[in-house]
């Protein structure tokens, strides 16, 4: 099977510093994969190795089933760590030049400019672009080849909220159209949560967790605000078991399936407890992220 991205034991050392260590990364066809990690975790270094810009110290890379370097990066589009273009050319000319390198037809240029909403300013010199416009041009360049695998390193850097929402929509649309997307991010976990099918978390060069967003969030539960709190806690312990009930910040946290909410509500009310609020409790990705990274840091020390 030709996996879009498959690395085995990928390692990169810069002198004494190990930027990426023993990374086994697998991205499946048609998914949007989020590659998360704090600053300096090794995300961009991994991406550079995927594209053959940086030689791995050890390990192998295959993109769309082909080893890197054996052929052109056919059907792969990428934006690496911030856009870089020729300042004396316009946005459109920049893309035309890149299309020649890519062997992509020049007709793709207006198309991708439209996709990133830059058509109106495409004739202006790149040097005069705002940060957000530069970023959009970077994404446009990544789309030039109509790639089957699209790799975006922090594509929403410098974009305003509406630009970010546009980008999210674009990524979802590409994913729906069968394009595999590898999305790198150090922040904007909310964004990642909304667009990614699976995420991998990397910390200090190592993959510390991988799975669907739901997997990573782990067990969910219910959060209950009720009066009186003590009575509610007592009744809840009888209903679901003492080990599944915790009192946190004046609220009950129950480790039960969220679909038991209605039943629980009925039982609590029947016991004379006034339920003010009852909603699913989810750890957000940010929390999970911090836990994962924190744990990893502790391991290393």
């Amino acid at each position, binding site marked *: 099977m030709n996996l879009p991205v498959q690395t085995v034991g990928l390692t990169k050392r810069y002198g004494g510093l190990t930027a990426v260590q023993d990374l086994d990364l697998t991205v499946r066809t048609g998914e949007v994969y989020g590659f998360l990690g704090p600053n300096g975790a090794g995300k961009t270094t991994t991406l*550079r190795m995927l*594209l*053959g*810009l*940086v*030689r791995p110290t050890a390990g192998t890379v295959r993109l769309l089933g082909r080893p890197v370097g054996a052929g*052109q*990066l*056919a059907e*792969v*589009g*990428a*934006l*690496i*760590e*911030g*856009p*870089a*273009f*020729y*300042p*004396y*050319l316009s946005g459109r*000319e920049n893309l*035309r*030049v*890149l299309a*020649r*390198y*890519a*062997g*992509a037809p020049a007709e793709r240029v207006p198309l991708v400019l439209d996709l990133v909403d830059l058509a109106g300013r495409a004739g202006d010199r790149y040097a005069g672009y705002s940060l957000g416009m530069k970023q959009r041009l*970077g994404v446009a*360049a*990544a789309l*030039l*080849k109509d790639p089957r695998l699209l790799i975006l390193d922090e594509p929403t850097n410098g974009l305003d909220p509406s630009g970010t929402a546009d980008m999210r929509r674009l990524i979802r649309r590409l994913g729906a159209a069968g394009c595999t997307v590898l999305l790198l991010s150090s922040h904007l976990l909310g964004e990642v949560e909304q667009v990614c099918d699976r995420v991998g978390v990397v910390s200090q060069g190592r993959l510390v967790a991988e799975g669907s967003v739901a997997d990573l969030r782990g067990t969910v539960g219910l959060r209950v605000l009720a009066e009186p709190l003590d009575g509610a806690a007592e009744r809840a312990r009888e209903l679901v078991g003492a080990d599944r009930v915790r009192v946190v910040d004046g609220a009950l946290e129950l480790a039960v399936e969220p679909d038991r909410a209605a039943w629980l509500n009925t039982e609590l009310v029947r016991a004379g407890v006034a339920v003010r609020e009852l909603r699913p409790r989810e750890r957000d990705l940010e929390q999970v992220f911090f836990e994962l990274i924190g744990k990893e840091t502790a391991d290393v020390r």
Partner: protein
Amino acid sequence: MSGSFQAELVKLVRRPAAWLLLAITLVLAVLFTYVFPYAGYAAGTAGPNTGRGLPALLPDRLVGNALGGLPVFLGAIVLILGVLVVGGEYGWGTWKTVLSQGPYRLAVYAGKLLTLAVAALVVVLAVFGVGALSSALIAAAEAQPVHWPGLGDLLIGIGAGWLIATMWAMLGVMLAVALRAVALPVGLGLVWMLAVQNLLTAIAAPLLDWVAQVQKGLPGPNAGSLAAALGASSDTPGVLSTVGGGQGALVVAAYLVAFAAAGAVLLRRRDIS
């Protein structure tokens, strides 16, 4: 590869700095080869170049006059062009942008070399062009008969100029790849061409025999010998018959290949960050 070549060509043609360099080249060539010597001749002042007198400025001396600047000062400008074409990618961080579109590194590099070879030819042809124009004007002003050099001499001259110019451009390329920048390679390249070479010739070589021997293998003196063999005046800095014209051409060609190859090896091996 042809896509890379076209892309490089577009980038160079659209680049204002490239045209500025060409303009400076032509202005310098006309000023120092024709305007100043002619003004000196017309005013009757004696100077290092006036001894040659009017005959040196006439159309039949076109080949030597056009080649005179290439061993040093026009060569220095072509070197800057070489640095710009490659070093710009480091300065703007555009290597990653280009390479993530998929071309092989060496295909992009070959496109750059080919573009520079074309640019060097354009520079040499333009220098010959403005030289022809200037000498024709002088001949007309002085009511002298106009005899152009034979076609064979002209082609050999253009070829030699092209060889020398491309060699300097390749030195610029190699320095840019080695230092991964623009400013430092330009600075070092110019220091070598304008200062070190002259110091070696003027000070070290007359004193030490081994320096004089080593000089015979350096690119500058060989380019200077080639230009001298084709009629460039030895009053021009860098033009000096240290070796024969044929050897000069061979050594210059060897340097051209060596610079290009060294750049290729470095570019292929190193990480792009």
